């Protein structure tokens, strides 16, 4: 039987990036994915007749420029759209426009404009420092080895270099909530909410949840990685998967799609390989899983194959998501009041004020639907007409908050889905009257749908909540940090490992570097 250096489970962006870096270093790598296409959550799907949508992730805002270059993704077909402005829709029709450092519209005050620049500058400093930590494995505090101490040293130095005020602020801010910080800095409710949206996106937290400044800085790392605002991927998000796949193949990575790994095979205290849904078993020195930690340990390895304390940590790892999506196929361009036709291609958000966001979170804690949602809307067919028949459009929106566990259950619960759909459309109509009449097809996606379609526990954006207790040197949980745990030869490389989720690629790259550094492969 052929023996691989590494079998990577999951051909999502992190799995492919890990594979590519391992193969670049001359290793024999196989990547396997249960789905028929590569990209994982970076996927495009045909929707209604002649429409295509990014059916999971919709924006690029975090992708590492360096990885794009090193893996020649542009040569392999990756094309990012323009950097988009954020238009925060206000019920008055006088919208707030956020473009990098500058704000306009919505009667925004000079004081807010100034404060916004200062706030961003500070956040950029923090994000830059955070990026230092993101570019390498997170150092262990206890049992730190030489490499870890260097990271800590450079971090400490970085903190000091920020100056006393920044340093003090970072220590204070990182654990508190975005709600208080917004109120400290700004006057305009719409502005506060627009910023808070970036802090809560992909989490199960509200603006008043502790930790939401940390998640905001996480998002800001995207800028430090070379992104400006958000962009769409031409051809739909699946094209990112396609480019990564093509690049990986060029590096010599073997790929098997449409075959699920059913089991990670462990003999003694080490992994031997994997078993596939076809019944095939494949051997490898290392098994590198980009599947979320819960699935990896609970379902693929099995609790009975790890120590009980570790199993307990997996059980306690929080994976509940509050993120859903709305997908619409439209017979024409909708008209958002106060938005020029050209600007409909920008990022449109509906987040009137932070209190409404927080109120929207409350019902989902109890498994109920909320009637106040936060929308992050993309109409990608304007910039990329290939996504819809001529003159027609697709609209996708990230929607918060949608309960992962509905009291009445999501399974076959058409009435709850219909209720959610109607509620979302009613809220959209306030800003885009008449949008209902354009709808050719519609779909709501709740967290557990992403669990079913993309194999992500809890449908969680980050493969597990990105909160301080599950981040950095604790990601995903103690005993499984630095991309490996107690099972010899088993590595994690997905969003559930440091530095976490979004289309970024650092988890995949760092993991590959760590494996190579350990020198365990042939």
């Amino acid at each position, binding site marked *: 039987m052929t023996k691989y250096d590494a079998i990577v489970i999951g051909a999502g962006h992190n799995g492919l990036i890990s594979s590519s870096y391992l193969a670049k270093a001359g290793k024999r790598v196989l990547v396997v994915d249960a789905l028929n296409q590569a990209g994982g959550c970076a996927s495009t799907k045909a929707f209604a007749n002649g429409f295509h949508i990014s059916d999971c992730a919709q924006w690029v805002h975090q992708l590492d420029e360096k990885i794009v270059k090193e893996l020649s993704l542009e040569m392999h077909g990756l094309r990012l759209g323009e950097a988009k402005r954020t238009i925060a829709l206000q019920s008055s029709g006088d919208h707030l426009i956020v473009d990098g450092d500058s704000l306009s519209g919505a009667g925004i005050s000079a004081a807010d404009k100034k404060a916004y620049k200062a706030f961003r500058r500070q956040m950029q400093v923090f994000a830059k420092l955070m990026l230092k930590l993101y570019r390498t494995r997170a150092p262990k505090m206890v049992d730190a080895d030489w490499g870890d101490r260097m990271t800590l040293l450079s971090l400490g130095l970085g903190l000091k270099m920020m100056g006393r005020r920044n340093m003090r602020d970072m220590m204070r801010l990182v654990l508190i909530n975005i709600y208080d910080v917004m109120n400290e800095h700004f006057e305009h409710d719409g502005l506060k909410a627009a910023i808070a949206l970036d802090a809560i996106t992909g989490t199960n937290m509200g603006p008043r949840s502790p930790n939401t400044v940390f998640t905001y800085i996480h998002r800001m790392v995207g800028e430090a990685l070379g992104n400006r605002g958000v962009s769409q991927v031409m051809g739909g998000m699946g094209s990112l998967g396609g480019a990564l796949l093509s690049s990986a193949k060029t590096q010599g990575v073997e790929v098997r799609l449409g075959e699920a790994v059913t089991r990670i095979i*462990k003999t003694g*205290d080490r992994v031997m390989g994997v078993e596939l849904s076809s019944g095939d078993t494949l051997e490898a020195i290392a098994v590198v899983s980009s599947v979320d930690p819960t699935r990896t340990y*609970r379902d693929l390895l099995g*609790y*009975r194959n790890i*120590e009980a*304390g570790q*199993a307990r940590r997996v*059980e306690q790892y929080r994976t509940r998501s509050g993120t859903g999506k709305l997908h619409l196929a439209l017979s024409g361009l909708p008209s958002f009041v106060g938005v020029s036709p050209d600007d409909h291609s920008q990022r449109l958000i509906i987040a009137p004020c932070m209190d409404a966001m927080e109120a929207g979170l409350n019902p989902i804690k109890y498994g109920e639907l909320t009637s106040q949602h936060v929308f992050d809307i993309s109409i990608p067919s304007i910039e990329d007409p290939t996504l819809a028949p001529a003159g027609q459009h697709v609209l996708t929106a990230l929607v918060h908050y949608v309960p992962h566990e509905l009291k009445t259950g999501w399974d076959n619960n058409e009435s709850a889905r219909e209720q959610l759909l109607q509620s979302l459309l009613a809220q959209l109509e306030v800003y885009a009257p008449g949008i209902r009449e354009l709808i050719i097809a519609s779909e709501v996606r709740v967290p557990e749908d992403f669990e079913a379609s993309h194999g992500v526990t809890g449908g969680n954006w980050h493969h597990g909540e990105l909160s301080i207790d599950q981040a950095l040197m604790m990601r995903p949980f103690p005993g499984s940090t630095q991309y490996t745990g*107690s099972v010899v030869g088993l590595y994690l490389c997905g969003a559930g490992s440091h530095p976490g989720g979004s289309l970024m690629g650092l988890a995949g790259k760092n993991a590959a570097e760590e494996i190579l550094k350990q020198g365990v492969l042939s």
Partner: protein
Amino acid sequence: MSAAERKTMLLTTPFHSRVEQYCELNDWGLWQGYTTPNSYFDMELEYFAIRSTAGVLDLSPMNKYRILGPDAEAFLNRLVTRDVTKIGVDRVGYAVWCNDGGELMDDGTIFHLAEDDYRLCSYMRADDWLEWNASGFDVTINNESDDIAALAVQGPVSCTILTLIGCEGLNELKPFGIARFDFEGVEMMVSRTGFTGDLGYEVWIDPSKANALWDQLFDKGRDYLIKPIGSHALHVARIEAGFLQANVDFVPAEIAVRPGRTRTPLEMGLDWQVDFNKSLFNGRAALVKQREEGLRYRFVLLDVEGNKPAEHSFIYKNGKQIGIVTSAAWCPTAKSNLAFAQVEMPHGAVGDEFVAEIYYQRELQWTRLMAPCKVIDGPLFNPPRKRQTPAPAH
């Protein structure tokens, strides 16, 4: 009920009405939430009952967990450090268990009652830990601590007395074996196990029969000088027999607060309990690492000069403190002043000599004694009758 009416906030065992009646000294102690006698009438005479006739100890406060289901064996095998597959049906095995850090949590006994059916007896409450351990296993775990009354009957005439109350053929039961008998229409389970290092049995029965069992034992055993024994007498017997005690000789990991206070089984002289051939058990990775990197401590049996028990003594080597005593007693049968101690590595090889700093008081006067002591290979009390089958008749 007011506290005064309740008399005590402690729990009582199914034997309490009898225990209370026999506890002439009214010297009560605390055992995991239960009130049990430290001594009944005379600690030394109780000890001598264990060694020369039969002593009866109320074991009921012991935590008892029933583990049932197709994965019961696999579950236990991941839980404890030893190989559970080697405990046959109707056999009992001593076992210790660790957390993921390899830190000792507790020790106890595993009773293999039937296929896919075990009972785990532990010193600590283990409900949470067992529940956590059950993830991924097809097992059910029931805390049956209150559903079973248990007595230890230990000593040279224990078999004879138990035979008189209806345990026909008990003398054929091998050490660590389990046998079942009828007692007034209910099943009475008897295991040849105990904590005294002597011929002895533990008797397990429905609480409704607790009083009847006690009465019959003391009735049939009167001529054989059967005596109830308290925890103080047991303490001496177990030291003599070389048995360590959770929460005395080591701090169970669950309740240790200060860093560095826990010990691994390797550091407690329990390496014989750790089966590294098993590919997985809780703490394995940490213990493999410790085995490679070396131990911090060694658990030793000390023979201390003189007759003053070296209780809580510091242990010195060349004037430097290198250890502490965790249990100590003058052991009458072994005619030795014994102590268990934790000493820092590399000290503690058999034959190593130290000094124990012993304080004792006579009429308000404290005296400090620097007693030479020596690491010995134990246990000192190890009579053939402990192992003989059939058990010798008296």
